[in-house]
């Protein structure tokens, strides 16, 4: 059972470079999310999607872009990487979205450093 798969696991970027964090899920979930986790700050929602072709901003969307061309895939694009984007990024999915009662399934994360 693969669940939510994220690649790469680790990445180091130089300031100004771009990259795409990949996320795919095999549970046929409509809802997908991108979070970033910084020490002592919990998880902050970057973007989310309620289905193929539909995305919306979360709490901290600046500097990021997403697309959702299929149910399975939800890549996160960083343009012009900045040191403030150094973080651990988690992709998650859920079958439903029910006022915070939905069960989120998380990937194992991408640790990104921007130097």
């Amino acid at each position: 059972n693969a669940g939510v798969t994220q690649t790469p696991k680790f990445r180091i970027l130089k300031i100004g470079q771009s990259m795409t964090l990949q996320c795919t899920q095999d549970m046929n979930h409509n809802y997908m999310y991108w979070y970033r986790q910084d020490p002592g700050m919990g998880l902050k929602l970057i973007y989310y999607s309620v289905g193929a072709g539909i995305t919306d901003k979360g709490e901290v969307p600046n500097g990021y872009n997403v697309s959702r061309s299929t149910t399975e895939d939800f890549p996160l694009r960083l343009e012009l990487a900045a040191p403030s984007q150094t973080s651990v990024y988690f992709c998650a999915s859920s079958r439903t979205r029910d006022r915070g009662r939905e069960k989120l399934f998380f990937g194992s994360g991408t640790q990104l450093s921007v130097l």
Partner: protein
Amino acid sequence: TQLLEQSPQFLSIQEGENLTVYCNSSSVFSSLQWYRQEPGEGPVLLVTVVTGGEVKKLKRLTFQFGDARKDSSLHITAAQPGDTGLYLCAGARSGSGNTGKLIFGQGTTLQVKP
């Protein structure tokens, strides 16, 4: 400022001890969830509480949702080294205008020494 404040932020105890982790807010939540996260992995859902005053038990873990739905606690009895990890609470605020998106607390790092 964190909408959901967890305390303590760090906890180091000996195997067999009991502990309680708190998740507090001034806002009312329609539900609260608790996740556990191990190093190098994503969070895993432990429980969801939805009714004020609700208590749920998961083996040695007891979760409680406050009567006013503004706070929650996680109590672990006779902690074991396998309980070591980061515990996160998360909730969606109730009331009109709120989007239902999950908000996470900053986490409590628990270390249980053998």
